[in-house]
């Protein structure tokens, strides 16, 4: 399950080699998508922002001093871009719920359960949603989630457990089971 425990080293040639960078995209896309989805609570936005994150990473990769820290570095870029995106949303006064509803309507590939689950996930706060996304989308362990989010393992464990409990609470309150 925990497939990302070891940071993938970035060799010096990766700075310049597009092919190697596309390998990094492959290695880290699930993690970055999980963070973006977790923070933005909207699949379409998460898709767009994940792309922005990797494009930004590609153009800035020469600023990455410690070549073994691509994971934390690209995660930071993702967080910054997501925060920026959230700020823009506030400025534009776009109702999050409205966007989420539109998005779920657009998503034709989801079955009913997935659409519902997505809507429920959107009701969780970011601090609970992000660990949950990292756990399921990127197969991260609590230890790895702690590393990615720069929190303690105990906090990661608590957030993940509470996320499950909150999710259950919402599902129970809404009535009916999945």
């Amino acid at each position: 399950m925990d497939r990302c425990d070891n940071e993938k080293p970035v060799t010096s040639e990766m700075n310049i080699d597009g092919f190697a960078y596309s390998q990094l995209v492959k290695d880290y896309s699930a993690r970055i998508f999980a963070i973006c989805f977790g923070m933005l609570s909207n699949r379409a936005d998460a898709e767009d922002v994940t792309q922005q994150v990797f494009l930004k990473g590609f153009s800035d990769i020469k600023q990455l001093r410690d070549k073994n820290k691509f994971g934390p570095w690209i995660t930071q870029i993702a967080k910054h871009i997501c925060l920026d995106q959230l700020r823009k949303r506030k400025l534009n006064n776009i109702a999050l719920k409205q966007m989420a509803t539109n998005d779920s309507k657009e998503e034709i590939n989801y079955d009913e359960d997935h659409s519902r689950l997505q809507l429920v996930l959107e009701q969780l706060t970011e601090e609970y949603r992000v660990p949950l996304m990292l756990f399921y989308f990127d197969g991260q362990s609590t230890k790895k989630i702690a590393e990615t989010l720069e929190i303690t393992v105990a906090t990661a464990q608590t957030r993940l457990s509470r996320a499950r409990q909150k999710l259950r609470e919402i599902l129970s309150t809404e009535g009916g089971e999945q």
Partner: protein
Amino acid sequence: MNIDCEKIREKLAELINDHIDPQEDSALSNHLKQCPGCAKYYNELKHDDEALSDFANSMQPVISRIEIKINKQLETEKINTIPIRKYRILKLAAAALIFFGIIVTLNQFGILFDGSSTAWAKVSQIILEVRTITFNISIGKGPVVACAASGKKFKQELPNGIEAIFDYDKSKMLVLNPNDKTSMNIDLSGLPIMPSNMFGNLKSTIEILKQCPDTIVKRLGKKIINNNEAAGIHVYLDTSIDLEIWYTTKDDVPILILAEKMIGQTNVTFSDFNFETITDESVFDLRTPENYTKIESVKMDLKNLSEQDLIDGLKAWAGLMGNKFPEKLDLAIIQEHSKDIEKMLNEKGTTDIEKALIVIKIMRGLIFISQLEVKWYYKSDNIELGNANNAIFWYQPERSKTYRVLYGDLHFADVEAENLPKTLLRTD
């Protein structure tokens, strides 16, 4: 729900985080047996866990789609002027081409070189695992050249009998002319760490195809090749790699591989493979045979290339081609124009060593370009050597806000982005 149940439920959520079964904890297990509420809650948590896993799995195609989009965007936004995957392929091709390009220096002898499926898994494996091989190759419309490869040693024989032996590790090449029993040594330095010959290049290409999830494999049907029934597969990756592989239906051994645009815009054909037939490494011996006369040695340094190498290379090219610049800055251009180069060199009556040096100059300029890691652009339409008003090339050096622009009289100038020559602004 009492306090105990509340704590138990927190613990149950933690167990799911750690993929642990509550049966492993006797206290928990006992509680679940006695408390239907918590047992139900645990089942619900398990159900949520499965639903979330299922949801995440359903997102995998979305993530793959993102990866494809990112790679496409990297190309279309021209973060590198050369598309990402192509850039890699070009780099792979570069080293192999350096070798082929060096053959051009054979002017010394008055000669220029002209020039979804299990099947895919099996065929690619055969190629990737081969240690020694002999095969024929033709580049574009060039002649068929017999080749032998073993690790980083490579040998090729031109149709006129000229043999070139290349040892990548030693960075040395020996060229033998059996017609007049002469030999030439070429010392190379600064070779890139890349496949050392065209077969190595093919191997790397196949490796990339195997690694990339976007690789598409399609069947091409069957036909008879060299009296063997052969089946074909078309294996490609967006627009950057395109192979047509024909293999025997009897034992899945490849017999013909057509690599589209393997060198720049030029197609390469590999055929007549013989696997693991080289038993004697002496075929790659770099020592001059006893009955051969050694003539001048040539040194070629591929390190520390600079703008000046580009200037010198373009000057050398234009000097041969009636003041015209090459239509593209691609290493394959030497192959494509090899006959013209040969003709002009002979018309100028240059000595053998002068010929070799001219070709090396052109190659160094092209290699400088192939190693640029930043944006660059080139367009030479109707601009002749000496034209100081029109630009033919620009690139943006690393960390530079301005651009280096090269004009037809081969002088470089620093130019602000907004002042880039309109003729050289990209429209694609």
